[in-house]
């Protein structure tokens, strides 16, 4: 089962995403901020990361750098309520930028798309 890590400080969002993404057939790993996510990474390697930007402590942009440190090829989706960070070059390091919405269709599609692209790349290189 593919592992999706969701990093968000909002408990409501974490619960919602866990439910929806479990229904999609993923194993969901939750973290409430950047530091917690870094701790989890030491033991579990997700297949894709969904990242909020504004979080107390280590924010999503800083975490993005740390994630790429561990694995530059790990797909990351930035999932923020704000569109203004799209102009920040640091967010361009993520594979996708999805603005938060009550409709999770776009997010689900992006997750699927990036995981498939990753699988394809892996089979090509093997």
């Amino acid at each position, binding site marked *: 089962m593919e592992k999706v890590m969701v990093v968000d400080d909002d408990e409501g969002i974490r619960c919602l995403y866990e439910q929806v993404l479990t229904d999609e057939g993923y194993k969901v790993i939750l973290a409430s901020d950047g530091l917690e996510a870094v701790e989890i990474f030491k033991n579990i390697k997700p297949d894709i990361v969904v990242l909020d930007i504004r979080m107390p402590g280590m924010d999503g942009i800083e975490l993005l*750098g740390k994630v*790429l*440190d561990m694995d*530059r*090829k790990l797909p990351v989706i930035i999932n923020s309520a704000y569109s203004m960070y799209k102009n*920040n*070059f*640091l967010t*361009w*390091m993520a594979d996708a930028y999805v603005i938060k919405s009550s409709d999770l269709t776009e997010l689900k599609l992006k997750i699927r798309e990036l995981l498939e692209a990753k699988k394809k790349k892996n089979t090509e290189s093997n």
Partner: protein
Amino acid sequence: MSGEQENILVMILAGGKGERLYPLTRDRAKPAVPFGGIYRIIDFTLSNCVNAGLRKIYLLTQYKSLSLVRHIRLGWSTMFKPQIGEFIETLPAQQRVTIDWYKGTADAVFQNIYSIQQERPELILILSGDHIYKMDYRKMIRFHTEKNADVTVGTVKVPLRDMSRYGIIELDKGKRIVGFKEKPSQKEYTTKEDFALASMGVYVFNTDVIVKEVIEDAKKETSHDFGRDIIPRIISKKRAFGHVFAQEYWRDIGTIDAYWDASMDLVSRTPELNLHDSEWPIFTFRPQLPPAKIVLDGNSRNGKIVDSIVSLGCIIKGGYVENSILSYNVLIRSNAHVEESILMSNVDVERGCKIRRAIIDKGVMLEDGTVIGYDKRQDRKNYFVSENGIVVIPKTRERGEKYA
């Protein structure tokens, strides 16, 4: 700073190890290698920037950067006015984005996306800190804007026999890049011209384009190099143009022999590289030293200098110097004979030395009667000798870091 240059950020790649310049690079990065008596290699690129009104500069450093950083602090920092947005900053691999050293030129830019985000320029000019040339980058920037390009590569004409040393760029009539070959043989690349266009390692990028490209590159298994990885990939998908540098003089001082050749050009009667050019001055750090002095020795023998460069603080006491470059505070004693050599600062040449075709690094004292350059076998036994037989005596360790 005026108008069009205001929103351009310069990133100078100054992390080169310069392994083929060893032992001049034993204790310093290649851009910090002294050249032309009073300069360091980086001074040429930095002077080009300042003369072109480009005053927002990041210098990306890593190996053995102590003397480079010191040179920038002493000689260059004061030429920039932070009050009006000018700066020169040295950026070592900061582990800001990732924890690695710079893995290549493209990776060095990738790791500084944070710094690019701080400035948010419209264009980024990528330069190498290793080359010696005088170039007005404004012409290339204007060309880039006129062509509505995504990236413009600076090229220089090189003879066909030298192609295998460079990345060769092929242009169509409108100067758009249609081909790129890394170090081709004469069989691999044919042209009707009697020259080829070599990439100078000088690039103008639209900022969004370079940021996207270095990120894409960072996620691939490549050598993370602009010349090898980014440019070949970009020419088919973006508007990539080649600007032809109008002058002939452009040198990558890659080896000891190339260094010696470029130095000998400077002491020739009409050098290809003119340092006495008030239109395009080359700036550097200048220590406060007394003027050079040429005096009789105790036996009333005259000190004599011909076809040479002599820097401040030198004392020539009855020796003979020909076709040589003397950096600061060099002392030549009576009966010493120096020919076709480069003596860096604080070198002492004692009585009766005979020195020919040699590079003597900082602080070295050549004792009475030392002979270099007259007996190939002896030279190879005693010293570091280059392919073409140039003897190099590395910087002294005995006299301390003062002479870095």
